[in-house]
């Protein structure tokens, strides 16, 4: 079947078998190998990409389900002007070790910061609970998301802040399980 997606700002098409997942489409057909195959069943989060603004497991979405949608992968985060603050902070603080989970962690963090520009630690932990990491103990990642949030806010003028989607009520407002 033919699938057309907007990936990292470019419209791309591919003819793939229907059972092709978004992950395989990205990695094998578009050669965007940033998203990783860690478990292939939605447990590890190494394949996390952003589809229409939402972080999803690319291994659990069929390419056909992504047809017509907008996908952002780790390769689409940095611009010609430079690194995304998450990438900047993560590299400076050693937030990634082996780095295999990194693209997924960064994309989950990006989706969080798009939705909640100034998240609490609880919100960050909640947003990254679907990204397993065996190296770091998550600590420098969590600190890094805070730091990146500050960087993003300091570079955002109040006017552009106001045009952003209103922040959803903080998840932390719900009682802890």
């Amino acid at each position: 079947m033919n699938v057309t997606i907007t990936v990292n700002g470019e419209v791309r098409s591919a003819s793939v078998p229907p059972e092709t997942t978004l992950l395989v489409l990205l990695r094998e057909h578009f050669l965007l190998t940033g998203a990783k195959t860690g478990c292939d069943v939605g447990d590890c989060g190494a394949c996390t990409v952003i589809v229409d603004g939402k972080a999803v497991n690319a291994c659990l979405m069929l390419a056909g389900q992504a047809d017509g949608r907008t996908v952002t992968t780790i390769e689409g985060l940095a611009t010609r002007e430079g690194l995304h603050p998450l990438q900047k902070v993560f590299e400076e603080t050693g937030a990634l070790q082996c780095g295999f989970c990194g693209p997924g962690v960064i994309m989950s963090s990006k989706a969080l910061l798009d939705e909640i520009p100034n998240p609490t630690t609880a919100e960050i932990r909640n947003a990254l609970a679907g990204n397993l990491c065996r190296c770091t103990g998550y600590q420098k990642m969590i600190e890094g998301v805070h730091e990146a949030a500050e960087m993003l806010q300091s570079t955002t003028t109040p006017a552009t802040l106001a045009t952003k989607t209103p922040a959803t009520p903080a998840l932390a407002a719900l009682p802890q399980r």
Partner: protein
Amino acid sequence: MKRRGRGIASMWYPVGFTVAANPSGAVVKVNEDGTAVVLTGTVETGQGALGVLSQIAAEALGIAPNDIHIVSGDTDTCPMDTGAIASRTTYITGNAIAAAAAEARDTLFEVASQMLGVKTSQLEAKDHKIQVKGFPARSAPIADVALRAHLVNGTPPIGSASWNPPTVPLDPETGQGKPFGTYVYATQIAEIDVDDETGEVEVLRVTASHDCGTAINPMLVEGQIEGGVFMGLGFALQEEILFDKQGRQLNPNLTNYIMPTTLDMPVVESDIVDSYDETGPFGAKAVGEPSLVPTAAAITNAIYDAVGVRITALPATAERVLAAIKAKRAMEQKQIPA
């Protein structure tokens, strides 16, 4: 109701293989511009070894870590290395690289001694210069020295070395001997809450103080400690491969093999002990494996502190902790005279 507890555990851990030879070789080539290439047979497995090894080479050559490029993990191009195992990279590969860098530096000293008119023994490599000890103003940029070595003197500064920690085999009857070059030490303290109705243990924070000799890169040492506590926490409370009666794994997937998520990890307070081991490169030892060793005992000791039950079989799942609490209550009720 939640009950708070604290527990402590200390440990020791050796660096490198048990007696068996586990050498590392290294080649350091100083480029014409005073930067350097290091060849090592070890492989980056995520711990940041190549960064640490760059810093060791840079220190020995008096240049910056970013001036070093490492070529690694190729049996055709790299000298033999036993590999990323047994927390040996910083200590053993590091020693080999420091020695290889010193050899390359000696060539630079010979060239510089002609340029500066002093004996090689009076020279040191520092701040991207070869300079006279005690008279840093009398110096030559390392780039000039290197270029001269390559193109004028015809002595490209290349050093190679290998290192294997000295050991004494263990007596087969008694096990007496010197199995390792050196050891590292650590203490961790855990603070936890135990829910005495469900048995659930929540780790609130872990303080981890580790001796790793000189911390070549404290940021990476912290990373190892934080990751070690994570793995230790999984070992203490969650992780277990389960088998059925026919020897087949029951939970061979990340859905049912439970390891900590961000929501399960406490804050880790890292501390690096002031330490210097003269047998290691610039006083460094190791931190990779040891960081997970004491965590489980610190946590189970904290469980005892909180609810008075001793968990002797890991993992201390909520079910096991609750069972122990109930057994203790039953015992106490028996002991109360009617």
